[in-house]
């Protein structure tokens, strides 16, 4: 598919009233594998985390993956965050040997034939900072120049790479003022003040350093739990629009709460027109930062019912996705965690409140004894209901000596959504891996969502969707008054809702295009509420195509 074909539709229409045309429930049993799991020609990345006998906690937490079209050729490219060379005995100034190509982050450009080329060096992404141990990645066009920029989180200093539009990137961290510090985890671009410029949220895990590193388990050494280290604040950077950012963590109220942040996801859960923030915390209350619309946030996880699991326990929150799983028009939260509680599903009950409904939704039987990280709610079978995919693997590489019922390496969980209740399905591979990151997108532009996952000490896994009979529609937003990526837009297609974002999952960044399964419907009615508050409606769009919708200039 050429870029011209991909961009064959460019809509710019006024607002109209639309009815809801939800697809009928698909009664098919999920017996055949949904994905074909294969390696991709030209991708030779290995996530090198360098586990040590000292069990430094950083070793078991990387690493992220991003799906982005960095050169705007209509083909998704892949960016992997590598970790670094940890050693038993480390002292400041610490070196993680990141100048060694084995520990570089990697950018793979997709070629028209579906193969990939490693363009890391020529793109200027080889130097990841020798004192940085890599974690995650966020993608967004922060300067609205039409080219996606990359933000890499680390233990150490984070790096913002500006996309120059010519296949190269420039490290603009110092100028932008977004280096953060300490141990950053997931990050994401979003526009919290609807000024048309993407701001940046960075979660931080805990107050750790090589001096503070310790080993737990006297006879059976292993990684220490997060509670052994002090909690820490997350960071919010406001985009000034001149290539620089201002740290507004304190003035916005974000820094009022300390936690053990790992995952972050965005959506406007109460429909007030401002994007809210959810932070998945490891073994503490989850944070729901309500956007007050005046530059400040109020953390309301407990009072809104989105802080604790159904059992009342504090989840060991790892990854999170903030999308509407039951097609009621309200974004819900799926939080992955460690055993022995199921992944937490906070159902949005409306009026700003949530209730944990993982048991009602069938996740109790699917996830009680596994460890989840990267997560997505995507419609893999295009039946109109968002399914769940979770990459799994325990934190401890020696967990079996503690509990023989648990495994360090696990296959992923694929759960198909049958009208709001999840059922196990065959992802196409039961190969156990120490899974961590996961990014979701349509790698081969066939209209069916694929998955790329990372695993510690291993090559990535590629889950290519086998496809099927149902129809689909994929939308690229182009903001004008709103941020160019359209992040924060609420897009309704035949009654389904998606919130435009590349954030979510764990340490990873997804294809920013909005994918909708249409079931047997051959046309779609689209309603968009942009962050600018403009409402825009497009009727009778033919199914099975990629379209670009530019923000209407008329309110």
């Amino acid at each position, binding site marked *: 598919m050429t870029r011209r074909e991909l961009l064959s539709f460019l809509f710019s229409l006024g607002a109209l009233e639309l009815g809801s045309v939800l697809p009928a429930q698909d009664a098919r049993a999920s017996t055949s594998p949904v994905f074909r799991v294969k390696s991709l020609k030209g991708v030779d990345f290995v996530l090198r985390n360098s586990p040590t006998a000292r069990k430094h906690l950083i070793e078991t937490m990387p690493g992220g993956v991003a799906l982005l079209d960095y050169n705007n050729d209509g083909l998704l490219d892949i960016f992997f965050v590598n970790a670094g060379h940890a050693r038993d005995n480390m002292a400041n100034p610490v070196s993680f040997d990141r100048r060694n190509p084995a520990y570089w982050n990697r950018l793979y450009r997709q070629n028209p034939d579906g193969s990939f080329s490693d363009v890391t060096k020529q793109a200027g992404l080889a130097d990841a900072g020798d004192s940085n141990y890599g974690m995650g990645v966020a993608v967004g066009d922060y300067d609205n120049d039409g080219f996606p920029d990359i933000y890499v989180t680390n233990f150490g200093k984070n790096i913002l790479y500006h996309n120059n539009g010519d296949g190269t990137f420039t490290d603009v961290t110092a100028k932008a003022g977004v280096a953060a510090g300490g141990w950053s985890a997931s990050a994401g671009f979003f526009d919290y003040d609807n000024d048309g410029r993407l701001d940046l949220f960075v979660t931080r895990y805990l107050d750790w350093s090589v001096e503070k590193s310790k080993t737990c388990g006297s006879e059976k050494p292993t990684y220490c739990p997060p509670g052994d280290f002090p909690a820490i604040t997350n960071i919010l950077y406001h985009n000034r629009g001149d290539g620089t950012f201002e740290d507004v963590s304190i003035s916005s109220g974000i820094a009022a709460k300390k936690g053990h942040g790992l995952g972050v996801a965005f959506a406007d859960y109460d429909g007030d027109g401002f994007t809210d923030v959810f932070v998945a915390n490891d073994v503490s209350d989850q944070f729901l930062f309500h956007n007050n619309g005046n530059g400040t946030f109020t953390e309301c996880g*407990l*009072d809104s*019912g989105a802080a*604790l699991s*159904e*059992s*009342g326990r504090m989840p060991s929150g790892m990854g999170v996705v903030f999308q509407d799983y039951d097609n009621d028009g309200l974004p819900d939260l799926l939080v992955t965690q460690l*055993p*022995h509680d*199921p992944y937490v599903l906070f159902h949005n*009950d409306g*009026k700003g*409140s949530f*209730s*944990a409904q993982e*048991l*009602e*939704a*069938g996740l*109790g*039987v699917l*996830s*009680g*004894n596994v460890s989840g990280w990267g997560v997505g709610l995507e419609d893999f079978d295009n039946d109109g209901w968002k399914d769940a995919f979770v990459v799994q693997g325990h934190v401890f590489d020696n967990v079996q000596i503690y*509990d*023989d*019922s648990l495994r360090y390496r696990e296959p992923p969980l694929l759960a198909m959504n049958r009208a709001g*209740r999840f059922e196990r399905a065959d992802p196409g591979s039961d190969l156990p891996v120490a899974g961590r990151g996961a990014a979701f997108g349509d790698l081969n532009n066939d209209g069916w969502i694929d998955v790329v996952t990372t695993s510690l000490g291993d090559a990535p896994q590629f889950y290519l969707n086998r496809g099927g009979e149902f129809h689909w529609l994929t939308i690229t937003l182009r903001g004008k008054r709103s941020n160019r990526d359209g992040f924060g837009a609420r897009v309704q297609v035949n009654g389904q809702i998606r919130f435009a974002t590349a954030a979510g999952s764990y340490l990873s960044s997804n294809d920013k295009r909005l994918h909708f399964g249409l079931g047997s419907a051959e046309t779609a009615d689209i309603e968009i509420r942009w962050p600018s508050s403009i409402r825009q409606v497009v009727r009778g769009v033919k199914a099975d195509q990629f379209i670009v919708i530019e923000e209407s200039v008329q309110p």
Partner: protein
Amino acid sequence: MIHALLWMCLLLPAQSADASLPPDALPLLQSGIDAENRGAFDQAVAAFRKAAELAPNSAIVLLRLGDTYMKERDYAAAIPPLQRAAELSPDAPAVHQLLGYALLAAGYASEAIPHLKIIHDDGALGIAQLQAGQAAEAVANLQAALAKSPDDPDLLFYLSRAATALAGQSLDRLRSVDPNSARGHQALGQTDYEMKMLPEAAKEYEQAIALRPDLPGLRLELGQVFAAGSEWAKAEEQFRGETKLQPGSAEAAYRLGNALLQQGKMKEAAQELKRSDSLSPDMPETLYALGRAAASSDPDVAEHALQRVIELEKQTPLAGQAHLVLAQIHRRQGKTEQAARDMENYRKIQALAAHPPS
């Protein structure tokens, strides 16, 4: 109390010496007693040893010497003079008490037992029997001692140790007598389960059930093995089987209800949990699970159950969790003020757990 008895060695009057001693030993004995009264145990030992050399058949001198060694925590040194004192005065309870304690403290539990039996010290005797591997006798004597001192922490501690040892001995015996019996497999299954070897435990229980399908409890325990591995459908099958065998078992009904709850079968779960509550009312865990199961489908039942949990549990973590579920119910009902009060109560309990009153 036991601790005090073990290490407390003052058994003899310290105010005067024995007038029947040889004349040259008497001042030494008195000198030793004086030194002992001053806490100068080294000097006391030296004086008593010299007195014992002059009067080797004086039980009182030997007893004083042994007593002083024990005050110095030198139990091994105390044993020879006390053993000699016991030979000389076999009917003196104080000698047997000190010798029994010295032997026990030095690790000679079996040798201590006859002396502790003479003085009828149930507590110390029970401890000696536990250490000598006589778990059944230890349980009996420790229970007798606890009847006299019900809240003694040392006795409670040793009784729990003795009961555990007795259970272990019984299981070892069961395994050696008939390892392939249903009970033998059940015992092995239990051991595997405790070691978190869940697949192995399940196999043992399945073999036990194959041998004795009508034996109550097997399915309950196998269900718990599956539940520990979050295999809730398999757990449900076993718990359901147990409720057929034991329709009057509140625990089986509770376990079945919980397995249904974990699978999201809320209405069925609520039904079974109600049945468990009717069989054994006011079990907080059952009521809490009922509250969770009925929260969406029957909020009145859920609220009633959760309020009862709070009445029963007051400020425990379970009561806190009940407040949380109540808040969820009230938020759904639009009762925001009530939900806020629920959360306030939840936070109070959390704060209490974080900072318990001294």
